[in-house]
């Protein structure tokens, strides 16, 4: 699997549309490997698609047995703004929270289901002085599964989205194809669609390196500036490892004195 990941990353990038202006791109579908109360995961990584790239961060905490909260932040950009008014560029971001449940099965598998809400915005400059700035909200339901061994792990999840573009400021001077794409997005919003995410990683507790591919399944959206896929690499820390270790090392008499 590990040998195939670079190939999969390349395929994902090639699958992406050639369009250089995007109005949506899938962030990574987080599939935390949760086993017990107080399990805590945090990850940060690089993510990109065709002609855009950025970073994302995620954190997950289990406050109760079988229950967890999830936080995601995703931020990408296409080219960089500069003083040249003819420069095309764009950027987008998304921040979301989710509540969910998990069920550890055997010693090395965890099933999860998260429901979440978030919002973000996507800005594009078209190189002719025209810009667009769209704001959206996303509600999602995401079942997932993670299998983790001593040195490697694999996960898969699907995300059912309700994506609503709540507002936008759009310059009429932008290229007609882009204007049509935005009008189409406005007309069909809220948009229901699903995404599929795969993760494969290696490492050992408490640090894992993960490779991710996220695919947007709704083909009809691809011509409206929806990126077909993203791919990323991230590093994840099992933070509970540190405080559990601290707790384990605490002198016994400290309990006795309480």
């Amino acid at each position: 699997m590990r040998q195939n990941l670079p190939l999969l990353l390349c395929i994902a990038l090639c699958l992406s549309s050639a369009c250089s202006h995007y109005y949506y791109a899938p962030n990574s579908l987080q599939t935390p490997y949760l086993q017990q109360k107080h399990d805590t995961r945090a990850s940060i990584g690089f993510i990109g698609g065709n002609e855009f790239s950025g970073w994302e961060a995620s954190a997950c905490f289990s406050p109760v047995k079988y229950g967890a909260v999830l936080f995601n932040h995703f931020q990408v950009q296409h080219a960089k703004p500069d003083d040249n008014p003819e420069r095309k560029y764009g950027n987008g971001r998304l921040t979301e929270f989710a509540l969910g449940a998990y069920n550890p099965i055997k010693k090395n598998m965890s099933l999860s289901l998260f429901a979440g809400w978030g919002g973000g915005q996507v800005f594009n400059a078209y190189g002719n002085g025209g810009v667009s700035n769209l704001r959206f909200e996303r509600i999602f339901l995401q079942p997932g599964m993670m299998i983790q061994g001593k040195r490697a792990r694999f996960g898969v999840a699907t995300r059912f989205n309700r994506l609503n573009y709540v507002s936008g400021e759009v310059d009429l001077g932008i290229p007609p194809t882009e204007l049509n794409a935005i009008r189409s997005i406005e007309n069909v919003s809220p948009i229901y669609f699903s995404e599929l995410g795969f993760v494969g990683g290696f490492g050992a507790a408490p640090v894992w390196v993960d490779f991710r591919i996220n695919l947007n399944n709704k083909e009809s959206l691809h011509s409206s500036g929806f990126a077909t896929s993203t791919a990323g690499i991230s590093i994840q820390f099992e933070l509970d490892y540190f405080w559990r270790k601290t707790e384990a090392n605490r002198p016994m008499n400290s309990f006795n004195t309480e």
Partner: protein
Amino acid sequence: MKKLHLACLFLGTLILAAACKRDTDFNYYYYEPADFALLSQYLNLPDRPENYQSTLPKHLQSLGLAARPVDYDKATLGRVLFYDKNLSKDGTISCASCHKQELAFSDDKKVSAGVFGLTGDRNSIALGSVLSFSAYYGTDLFGPSGVPFFWDNRANTAAEQNLASMTNPNEMGMSHTDIVNAVQTQPYYEPLFRMAFGSNQVTQARVSEAIAEFVNGIGSYKSKFDSEAEKTLGYNTYSNLERNNFSGFSAAENRGKLIYLDNCASCHSPLQGRPEKMKANNGLDAATVDAGVGGVTNQANDMAQFKVPTLRNIELTGPYMHDGRFATLEEVVEHYSTGIQNHPNLSPELKYGYQPKKLNFSAQDKSDLVAFLKTLTDQELRTDKRYANPFK
């Protein structure tokens, strides 16, 4: 249990939110809302620039003619400048005062009125007498095949031309500084300059460039003649098919077309593309009254030679000739029929040997020729909102 309830509550809220179709609030704009509000106080401009690009019909394309790309933002700014009377010394004259849209951007006076009651010394040239301003004028791009500006061909570009008119004491009477000051004091120019040039800095060069861009967007190629020529010739303009009857023409118009092709087209262009000659003396006077091109070049053989215009919209652009001496088309035809004078620089096309040609048109010929000339009128140009006065 309480936590489970909270989780259920969260999920329920999400489902409810998903069930609601929330209205989206999309605002489409070209100008910043504050800018457009400011512009709308003074101007009737659409919420985005008009498309000023000309797409010529096939018979003109096949002559190798093509309109230059037009910057719509600059053209929009130029349109406002073109109609702005603040660009004259006494605030009474704009470019449009002497180039009226309903008259194919010409004036119905022999010579136009300028500032302080002064008058110009030549008839206002019709900006709409050409297939496309940008495909026709300008020796800067087209070299010798591009038509220079003014009756005496003294300017090479539209920017040079409009600057000369703005600074002519008999026309608009401005200095370069006056032009910049007049523009800077009008609040509506700030956003227009920003859109056109990326900054609100006003310079005389930018003013001239914007006006040039607007007039470069003017095109007249939707006359009855054009629709018939496109139908009959298409791209086949070297076939002499223009001599065949046009099916949409009346008998008089078709006869007039042949008279035109035989007697006028060798200077004015068979298909109203670019003129066949850039300058000519057409025998208005036997002696030089106005030096014309000769006044610019100081060449004896240029004396009393003037620009040869194409005749699009000629029905609308009287009075005729550089001095506006003929009030009607009939008078013009009569001049070529019987009135050509033997000026030393008389164009060879108007001579038999050393004597001026007398075309001696019959009454029917004259009437047919005028009927044909009226097929060159482009009614759409007269009311095209892209060229209309934007001021409230």
